[in-house]
């Protein structure tokens, strides 16, 4: 099993779109896949038309095992399940804070899912907190959607710094350019600046209306518009990521 966390310290960078579309591509290529919606806003769950059970709370999630498995829902797509968001995820950090060895806690929580899923995607909340730290430890790959601007650059450097300080393997880190507007000089310049670097993926996600429309269709883009530019991009991005996963 490979755990792929989709994370950025900033919000609104296309994190949820990336999680939803890539987990769909993983499933569509025959891999049993689970998407964990860890973002309290529950956008991933919304895209899949899933509501979580009322009883489910942060404590349950961290207990793992049966109650976690009971909360998993099948999506409308073969091989793809989702662990829906719950508003009590807001309390996740607090809950984690009260537990010992909390950094490794998430790793253990996800362990029972190993037999069932080939890929587990984590759609993470923004900011660096105890939960994010847990995610960094547990994940095999941390995918960072990144709008090519100066400000994003600053936050990326901050994250690298944090990894260095915490002693987390930085080889897990991969950047995918997201919401790229090719007409904008600043986007072009930034991408040029990063081109060819090791931790940067070749495929980038353009800023297109098909992705914006996910909220209306409530479906992954490659499901409702597989031949569109966006649909093709996610297929290509998944091929590239699949190749990286095999290297691990």
């Amino acid at each position, binding site marked *: 099993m490979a755990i792929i966390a989709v994370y950025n310290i900033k919000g609104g960078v296309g994190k949820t779109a990336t999680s939803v579309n890539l987990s769909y591509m993983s499933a569509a290529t*025959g891999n049993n896949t689970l998407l964990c919606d860890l973002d309290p806003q529950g956008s991933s769950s919304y895209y*899949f*038309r*899933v*509501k979580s059970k009322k009883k489910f709370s942060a404590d349950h999630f961290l207990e793992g095992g049966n109650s976690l*498995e009971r*909360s*998993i*829902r*099948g999506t*409308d797509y073969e091989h793809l*399940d989702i662990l829906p968001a719950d508003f009590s995820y807001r309390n996740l950090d607090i809950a984690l804070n009260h537990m010992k060895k909390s950094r490794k806690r998430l790793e253990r929580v996800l362990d029972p899912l190993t*037999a*069932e899923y080939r890929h587990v995607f984590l759609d993470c909340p923004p900011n660096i907190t105890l939960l994010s730290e847990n995610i960094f430890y547990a994940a095999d790959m941390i995918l960072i959607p990144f709008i090519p601007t100066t400000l994003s650059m600053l936050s990326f450097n901050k994250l690298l710094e944090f990894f260095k300080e915490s002693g987390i393997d930085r080889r897990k880190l991969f950047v995918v350019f997201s919401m790229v507007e090719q007409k904008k000089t600043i986007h072009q310049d930034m991408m040029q600046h990063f081109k060819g670097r090791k931790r940067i993926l070749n495929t980038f996600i353009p800023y297109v209306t098909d992705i914006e429309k996910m909220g209306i269709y*409530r479906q992954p883009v490659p499901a409702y518009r597989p031949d569109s530019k966006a649909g093709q991009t996610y297929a290509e991005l998944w091929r590239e990521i699949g190749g990286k996963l095999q290297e691990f």
Partner: protein
Amino acid sequence: MKLLAQLSRQLPDPSALQDLADELEKKYTVQDAPPLTASLSFYDSFDWRLYSDGLLCFRQGDRLSLTDLIGRELVPSLPISGEAPGFCRHLPDSALKRKLAPVLEMRTLLLQSSFSRTTRQLRILNKDKKTVAMLVLSELRVETGETDQPICSVQLHEVRGYEKWFQRLERALEEIGTPLPCTREQDLKTALAAKGCTPRDYSSKFSVPLKSDMAALTAAKTIYRDLLGTMRKNEQGILDDLDSEFLHDFRVAIRRTRSGLDMIKKVLEPKISVRFKEEFRFLGKITGPVRDLDVYLLMEEDYKARLPDHLQKGLCYFFEDLAEQRETEQEKLVQALQSLQYKTIIKDWKKYLRQKKKTEVAKKTPAIGIMANKIIRKRFERVLCDGRAIDADTPDESLHRLRIQGKKLRYCLEFFSSLYPAKEMKLLIKQLKALQNNLGLFNDLSVQQDMLNNYLAGLKPGSGKAKKMGAAIGGLLTNLYHEQQQVRTEFEAAFRCFSSQENISLYEKLFSSEQKPSQ
């Protein structure tokens, strides 16, 4: 790991499927997808090795899948092109190949059944338009089936986390049609049933039900009929040269028949007995050369492993030559099996075995139960006696003769197995098999050395190719010789096991002259 609930029911015809769809639309929000048609082909060896091992291999579109009988994929499916997948060794290196290889061995994958299935997916949606349960209406048509009437069924699939919806629909479906196992195995059975077949309709194992009070002639004919059936079933595979085992099973049936003719004495009319002993000897002879070459060709990987890299090239030439020889011999074999002589033998034998007129002749023969006791006892004593006479200094010849005696004992145990308690017979055969394995291996190694020696003698010296072949064969001979010595030292232990007091007592208990075989 959570297993999702499924339910399957068979419906009488396509209109019943439509009625169901209409009924559902009245009660639920249903998303109806356009029907899809896909064809599915099941593959297995002629003797159903995969199915017997709990595996199903099938092709859907351009992918080859391997699942358990329920239909769960055991390894990732494999893209394939062309018609039948054929031999395992021709598949690309993959988890699927590795899983298949030890089960399939030298057998080829044959198309066992194929059908096309038209499915129509009905998704049940909740008020958020989320799919909460799925129904699949399916019409299965067997491509080689006799009727056009499809087999109709409905499957209900649970969507994880929406159990209540499943339960609601389950109750509604229970009132229609008849239950059907929701497995891949059922698909195969359904498809085969349309052709009037069942899985495992061929096995190389001998099994004929006899009764101890049956007249010996009737029993013998029953045995021979079954063996003739085996021969007939394998004929086409030999002619088409599908894999080596058609001929192998064919020859085993010939040998069993010959053994029967020898052992079940004074039962068949003397004229018949004399004639067919000769005819079956002839059949053994014409099928021998190809089988002999097959045995070596099957050893290719084993031989390669016995030699260092620099001798491999010579071995390669050797096998190329054998393959060429086999082609010639196979042509001769095909001619022989298509000859009038062969057809006459089979026709006459079949005709004789079918005759039921002479019941008074049959009645004159003793009951098979008493005869079986005698035959087995005699065969057992012979093996025991010959085996005891063997020690470290006995010439190899005696071991070869013992092997033949062992085979005869094995055949008669198998012929009459149904007359005795199954558990005990299984044990006896297992004990004997251990001894036979030792003797068989010893014999194989010695036959192989003889053949290699002859081959070596026939090589024309001088060419580089001949030198390389000579070196490779020399290396092999040394290696095989050492192994044979080792096998010989293991004989004593194998025979000690076979001739244990326990085993002897068991033979005495089951086959003593006073003992009537139990039924």
